[in-house]
C-alpha cells in the first residue's frame, strides 16, 4: 500500500507545530501502525531528517505508552491501542492524519509525545490502599465475593493510556480516575480510605487542567480496555457519599 501521512511536527514544547506531509510506500497490511511509523522514521533518518518522536514500549497493548490521534480517532479507527492497530484497517492511497493527545493536563514534549505524569499525580493523591510491606494479614482472612472481585478487576485493567482524555470533548480525565476509584472502592481492603480517596483524587484531577465530565461517553467508546461508563457513575456515587459523610481527607 502507498499512504500519505500528515503528521504533527513540533520540535519542542514552545515551538510552533504544524502538520507535515510524508509519503510512505510498500506498506504491508500486516504491519502494525507503529511499524509503519518505524519505516517512515528509517527513511527520515537516512535522508538526514529528524525522525518522528512517538511513545511506545510493550507493543502488545498493555503498557499504555502508545497513543496517537489517528484521523481524528484516539488510537485509530478500532477500539484498541495504537500498537495493536494494523495497517489492514487502512487501504491503499489513504491519507492519514496523526496528532498527539491534546489536553491541558498533557503538555506536549515533542511531535507526538506528551507528558502524562498528571495521571501519576492523581494516583499519588489517593489511588492506593495504604498497606506498607510486611503489615499484610493472611490472604484468605478476607474473602471477596467473586462478583466484586471481577468488577474490581475490570476497572483495574485501565492502562493509563490517556485516550479517554484525548477523545473527551471536555478534555476530562474522569474515566481514568473513575477506573481507579472503582477498582479500589469495590474491594473490602479499599473501604477504610474510600471516602478520602475519591475526594482527593477528584481534587487532584481538577488541579491538573483536565476538563469536567458532562457524561458524553466518548471516553468509554475509545477506551482500549473498554472501561465502562458505569465506573464514572460509581465515582460520582462515592463522591456524593463522601461529601455527605463530610469526609475530610487525612492530612
Amino acid at each position: 500500500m502507498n499512504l500519505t501521512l500528515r503528521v504533527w511536527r513540533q520540535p519542542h514544547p514552545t515551538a510552533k507545530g504544524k502538520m507535515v506531509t510524508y509519503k510512505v510506500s510498500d506498506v504491508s497490511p500486516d504491519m502494525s501502525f507503529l511499524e509503519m511509523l518505524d519505516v517512515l522514521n528509517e527513511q527520515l533518518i537516512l535522508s538526514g531528517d529528524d525522525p518522528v518522536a512517538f511513545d511506545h514500549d510493550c507493543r502488545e497493548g498493555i503498557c499504555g505508552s502508545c497513543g496517537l490521534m489517528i484521523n481524528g480517532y484516539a488510537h485509530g479507527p478500532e477500539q484498541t491501542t495504537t500498537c495493536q492497530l494494523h495497517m489492514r484497517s487502512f487501504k491503499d492511497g489513504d491519507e492519514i492524519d496523526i496528532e498527539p493527545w491534546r489536553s491541558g493536563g498533557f503538555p506536549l514534549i515533542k511531535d507526538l509525545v506528551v507528558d502524562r505524569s498528571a495521571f501519576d499525580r492523581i494516583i499519588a493523591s489517593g489511588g492506593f490502599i495504604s498497606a506498607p510491606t510486611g503489615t499484610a494479614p493472611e490472604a484468605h482472612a478476607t474473602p471477596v465475593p467473586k462478583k466484586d472481585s471481577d468488577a474490581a478487576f475490570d476497572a483495574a485493567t485501565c492502562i493509563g493510556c490517556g485516550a479517554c482524555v484525548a477523545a473527551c470533548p471536555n478534555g476530562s480525565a474522569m474515566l481514568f480516575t473513575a477506573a481507579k476509584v472503582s477498582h479500589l472502592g469495590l474491594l473490602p481492603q479499599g473501604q477504610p480510605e474510600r471516602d478520602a480517596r475519591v475526594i482527593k483524587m477528584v481534587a487532584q484531577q481538577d488541579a491538573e487542567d483536565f476538563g469536567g465530565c458532562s457524561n458524553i461517553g466518548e471516553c468509554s467508546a475509545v477506551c482500549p480496555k473498554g472501561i465502562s461508563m458505569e465506573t464514572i457513575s460509581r465515582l460520582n456515587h462515592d463522591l456524593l457519599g463522601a461529601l455527605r459523610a463530610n469526609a475530610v481527607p487525612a492530612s
Partner: protein
Amino acid sequence: MALELFTEGDPIADTKAPTDVPIGERWSERKFRGRLVNPANRRKLHVIVVGTGLAGGSAAATLAEAGYKVTSFWYQDSPRRAHSVAAQGGINAAKNYRNDGDSVHRLFYDTVKGGDFRSRENNVHRLAEISTNIIDQCVAQGVPFAREYGGLLDNRSFGGAQVSRTFYARGQTGQQLLYGAYQALERQMGLGNVEQHARTEMLDLIVVDGKARGIVARNLVTGEVTTHMADAVVLATGGYGNVFYLSTNAKGSNATAIWRAHKRGALLANPCYTQIHPTCIPTSGDYQSKLTLMSESLRNDGRVWVPKERGDDRDPRQIPEDERDYYLERKYPAFGNLVPRDIASRQAKNVCDEGRGVGPGGLGVYLDFDEAMQRLGRKAIEAKYGNLFDMYARITGEDPYEVPMRIFPAVHYTMGGLWVDYDLQSTIPGLFVIGEANFSDHGANRLGASALMQGLADGYFVLPNTITDYLAAGPFPKVAEDDPAVVEARQAVVAQSEKLLSINGTRTVASFHRELGRLVWDYCGMERSEESLRKALDRIPEIRKEFWTNVKVSGEQGTFNQNLEHAGRVADFIELAELMCIDALHRNESCGGHFRVESQTEEGEALRDDENYAYVAAWEWTPEGEPPVLHKEDLNYEYVHLAQRSYK
C-alpha cells in the same frame, strides 16, 4: 575448549548465607546476624533505585516506607509502564490452598529441578519461603486476583509443577501486580519520600573508593546528563532479551544499566542462559518489531504440525492428513504436544531448518484446532481460548477458527544477569541487583510464574532486609560533584553520545540491531554448537566495528532524541552478545535453556555435565582486546539430588 577467548580467574563464592544452620533457618538467621539501621538514622541514608518494575517498584516503595531517602529512575513516562506489566500467566506461591501436597520444600525442589540444577539452593529456598508473604502483601494492596465463588483465591497449575500454586488475575497478572507496587510507590511519592526521575536513563555507575556511590543519567526529555549520588545503588532494570532484536520484551528493554555496571567491575553471570517460549505469533515480514506471546495453554488442545514436503505452500486446509507431519506426537508419543517449552521450541526450529516451516519466511509451524473443534465443538473452544484467538486474529488478520494458527518460538526471558550474593549485592560493594537483572534464582531455566515471584520477593522482602547490613556502616562521606570518579563517568557518557552523533554513516541503528539479533538468534539461540558460536564470534566484532564507523544517528545530544537512546542500547547489546557467545561456547554441556548440540542424550534431550559444569560462570570485564576473565562459583547441592530431566 575456546581457551583463547577468555582466561580463568579466582573462584568466587557467596559468603553471606549462614550455611551453619539448616536451610529452613538460613533466611531468618541472616536477618538476625545482619546489622540494622535505627529508624532515626534512616532519613540520612540515601538509596538510588533504578527501575520501577515489580522488583524496583516494590523495593523503592518498601525502602521509602521504612524511612530511607529514595531516588527512583525509570525510562518510560510512568513507573506503571515497566515491562513487568506485560506478564500474563501468573505468580507462584507455596500457599497449599488446594491441599494438594504443596509446601515450601516442594516449591524449592521444583524450582531447583526446573532450573536444571544450576541455581543456588539457599536463594531458591528463601524464595519459596517468601512466596507466601507476597500473596498476602498483594491482596492487602488490592490486587484483584481471580477468586472462586466462595470468595477465596483461585489457583491454576503451570508447567513444571504437579500442584496448583499459581495465582493469577485473568491474563494480566503482571499488570495487576505491578499496579499494586506502583500504587505503593506513588503513595510514597505523594508523601514526598521518593524523589522521582521519569524518562531518565541510567548510563553509567559511579564507583568511588571501590564502592557504588551513584549513577550518571540522561534526562531523555531535555538530553541533560546529570549525576546522582547516594549511599547505595539498586539496579532493577529487567532482562536483556532484546539482544535478539525480536523478543517478547518491550522495545525499550535494555542491558545498558547492567552492562555499564559490568564494565565498572560487577561480574556478570551466566549470560548465555536465555529462555525461549514456543507459542508466540510468528513474524510476518522484515519490518517486524517485536513478538507477541500467546499462552502456552493452547498446546492442551492444539496439534502441532508441518507439511511433510519441503516448500509445500498449499493452503493448510488443502493438505491431506497423510501429507502432514505431527512431529511432536511422532517423536514424543508419551507427552505429544505437551513436551516442555525448550523441547517444543527446538523441534519447531528443526523442522523449519529442514525447509518445512510455514508462513512468511518459512518461520512458523501450524497449531491446529480442527480436531479439537470437532471433538469439543466451537463453543467450547471459544470459551476456553476466545481471548487468545481474538488476539491472534487482530495481529495476523487470519481467523484461527478457520485456518490453523501459525506459531513460532521467541526469546522471552534471560536467566543470566549481574552476579549477586545472598544479600543480592554484586561484586561492587553498595551495588545491589534485583529482579530479572540479577542472575540469582532460576539457574539455567525459569519455571513459568516464577519471575514475578522472584521480582517481588527481591523487592518487598529480601533487599529491604539485606541492604540494612550495608547501610548500617553509612552514611558514607559525601562525594563531591567534582570528584574525579564523578567527572570521569559523566564525561565518558557525554563522549559516547557525541561520538555516536558524529559518525554520520550510512546505516540506521535499527539495521544494526536487526542484523545483530538475527545473528545471535541463528547462532546462539535455541541451539548452539561450537561451530555456530565461533561463526558468531567471528562476525560480532565486525558488526561492532562497522557500527562505530558507519552508523547514522540523527539529532543532537541536548534534546529529546529517541534515536540516540536506541544507539546507546545497541552499542551495549553488541558487546553483551559477544560475551553471551563466549559463555555459551565455554559451557560445553547442555542445561535448561542452553542447548549445545554436542551434548545431548540419544533422545535429543539436554545432557548436563555435572562433573565439569556445576558452577555459575561469573565474567569479569576487561578492556577491549583482552579476553574476559571467568570466575567460577561452585554449586553445592545439600538438599536436592542431581537428576537427569526426562519427558519420555
